[in-house]
């Protein structure tokens, strides 16, 4: 039946079909990244330095959340360990690219000759990502064998293991203290480009054959297995891609902040990014982007209250923990009333095309 149709269709259409799906996904990714691009360019053009700095932080979160979406959104397994990869990326470039004079102050006893090694930022970043990829491949091997809760707990174990190594291998990671002197080579333009690339990449993965199969296996493991889908391999693949994106976020963070410390890459980051993804909706890349935009603005507002504000003549006290309460309430309410998040099932381009089609009628 289908053969008949293909035979009668003009040959150009059959050749076009796969590439047009690719094009649609590519355009979809670009459309999804438009709001990010618009906000980024507005900040680049008009905002004062303080806001630029805040925006850089928000862009790092954006990349982490998109990375998280690649695994969680497609495999439907909660991942509570992704900030380990952010940390590995950041420490990777810190150890490789920090100038020698700085290293003498910070890590004079570094093993494997790292104390006398200084690479340029680009090759440091590449090596750091390779390290992230190796750690992800090893941990992914374990995680892809497990299902549901056990996989989540192992992701948590990974976070604790990596954090513990950062804290205790003081010769290499400087322990609890801040690691300083990393070259500040990344500004807002680089961050913007990376965000767009990552968003498009996540979208391409989601729409690809692998992404589709992975989502199918998350919905119905038996049906997917009956169709010959190897869910383990796909979970591993999305885990590694997700880790690489998170690692990239870490690299960029280290290169714009110049200073990192282990506690940046622990539970606080997990809380924030997870809340962003849940609020926006983890099924779509659009959801990841929406969640980051809404919560970044919201949290910044709450933080300004948290540090104590004066309304008229009344000075409010410091309210430490307020932003944490807000984050948690967002997660709980979202799960109860809108488990799919703000964006639900549809990507931005899909929503737009539905909207225009309806209006055209």
């Amino acid at each position: 039946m289908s053969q008949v149709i293909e035979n009668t269709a003009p040959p150009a259409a059959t050749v076009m079909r796969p590439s047009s799906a690719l094009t649609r996904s590519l355009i979809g990714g670009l459309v999804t990244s438009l709001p990010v691009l618009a906000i980024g360019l507005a900040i680049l053009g008009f905002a004062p330095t303080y806001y630029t700095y805040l925006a850089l932080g928000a862009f790092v979160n954006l990349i982490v959340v998109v990375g998280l979406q690649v695994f969680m959104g497609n495999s439907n397994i909660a991942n509570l360990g992704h900030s380990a990869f952010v940390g590995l990326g950041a420490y990777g470039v810190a150890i490789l690219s920090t100038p020698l004079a700085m290293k003498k102050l910070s890590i004079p006893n570094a093993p494997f000759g790292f104390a006398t090694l200084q690479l340029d930022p680009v090759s440091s970043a590449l090596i750091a990502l390779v390290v992230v990829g190796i750690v992800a491949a090893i941990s992914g091997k374990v995680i892809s064998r497990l299902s549901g809760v056990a996989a989540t707990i192992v992701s948590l174990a990974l976070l604790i293991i990596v954090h513990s190594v950062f804290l205790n291998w003081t010769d290499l990671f400087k322990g609890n203290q801040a690691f300083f002197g990393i070259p500040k080579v990344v500004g807002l333009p680089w961050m913007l480009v990376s965000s767009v690339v990552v968003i498009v990449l996540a979208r391409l993965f989601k729409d690809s054959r692998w992404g589709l199969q992975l989502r199918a296996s998350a919905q119905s493991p038996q049906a997917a297995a009956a169709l010959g889908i190897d869910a383990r391999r796909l979970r591993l693949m999305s885990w590694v891609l997700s880790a690489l994106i998170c690692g990239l976020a870490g690299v960029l963070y280290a290169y714009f902040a110049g200073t990192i410390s282990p506690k940046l890459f622990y539970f606080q980051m997990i809380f924030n990014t997870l809340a962003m993804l849940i609020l926006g909706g983890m099924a779509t890349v659009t959801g990841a982007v929406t969640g980051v935009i809404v919560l970044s603005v919201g949290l910044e507002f709450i933080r300004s209250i948290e540090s104590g504000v004066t309304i008229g003549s009344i000075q409010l006290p410091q309210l430490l923990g307020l932003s944490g309460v807000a984050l948690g309430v967002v997660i709980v309410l979202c799960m109860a009333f809108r488990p799919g998040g703000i964006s639900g099932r549809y990507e931005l381009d899909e929503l737009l095309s539905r909207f225009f089609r309806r209006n055209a009628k």
Partner: protein
Amino acid sequence: MDYALQQLLNALAFGAEYSLVALGLAVVFSIMGLVNFAHGEIIGVSAYSVFLAAALGLTSPFVAVLLAVAAAALAAVAFERVAFRPVRYAPTTTGLLTAFGVSIVVQNLFMLLISPKPQSVSILNGLNQMWFFGPFAVSSLQVMELVVSGLTILALVLFLNRSTLGLAIRAASRDFATVRLMGIKANRVIATAFAISGALAGIAAVFIIARRGSVSPDLGFSLVLKAFVACVIGGFGSLAGAAAGGMLLGFIEVGLLVALPQEYGGFKDALTYVIIVALLVYRPEGLLGQRVELGDKEI
């Protein structure tokens, strides 16, 4: 000899504590499939209510112990009513993330309403003494921890096996729909499971306060991470597995502490988790868990 005995007691006491908390997680998970990340905050509520009672002048240790257990049971039931009931029939991931949210809210409320810094509580310090048995000196707290945990687990087993409500809970963990068809109220079964889970957390809280002499917002969090691990190595949802996993974890931790040279002591946590993950590679379904595939018929 003395040293070996002391370390054995250490391992047993830690293991007993992990087992208590892990059992609390497993009771709830086996019935409603909820991965209760907020279990640590139940311990936190319990500890903070003892702190507040002490601040108000209730200094009797006996009252403090009762209060700790009661507050924990109430907190668990309240969490269920407010946060977990709306997601009762949702997928596991939704429940897990809800519990994660509850955990963040409660932890930050402690910070916001009381203090981000540890607060000292000395009511229960009397429990922590040295007892001398001939040449051996042992910590009373550890002995009590072991005995009380053992008795609690025994009581739980008796309750689950002998009482109607216990039977209903066990039945509900196998097939909830049928249990409801038999005329047993779902809300009552689940509330009881949460109350039991809370009471177990409350008993653990008593020992934590007695040992640390202080309370802090993240008090229960790291303990519950350990309890999760205990559940996972035992096989999630299996009560016997949770107890066994807790004991095993206690022995791994103390074993590593004894085996590791002083300067590498900081890596204890990392190594513990590496061992756990390695265990899971060989037995993904846990030590006492069964390999269940969706669609398999339960016999």
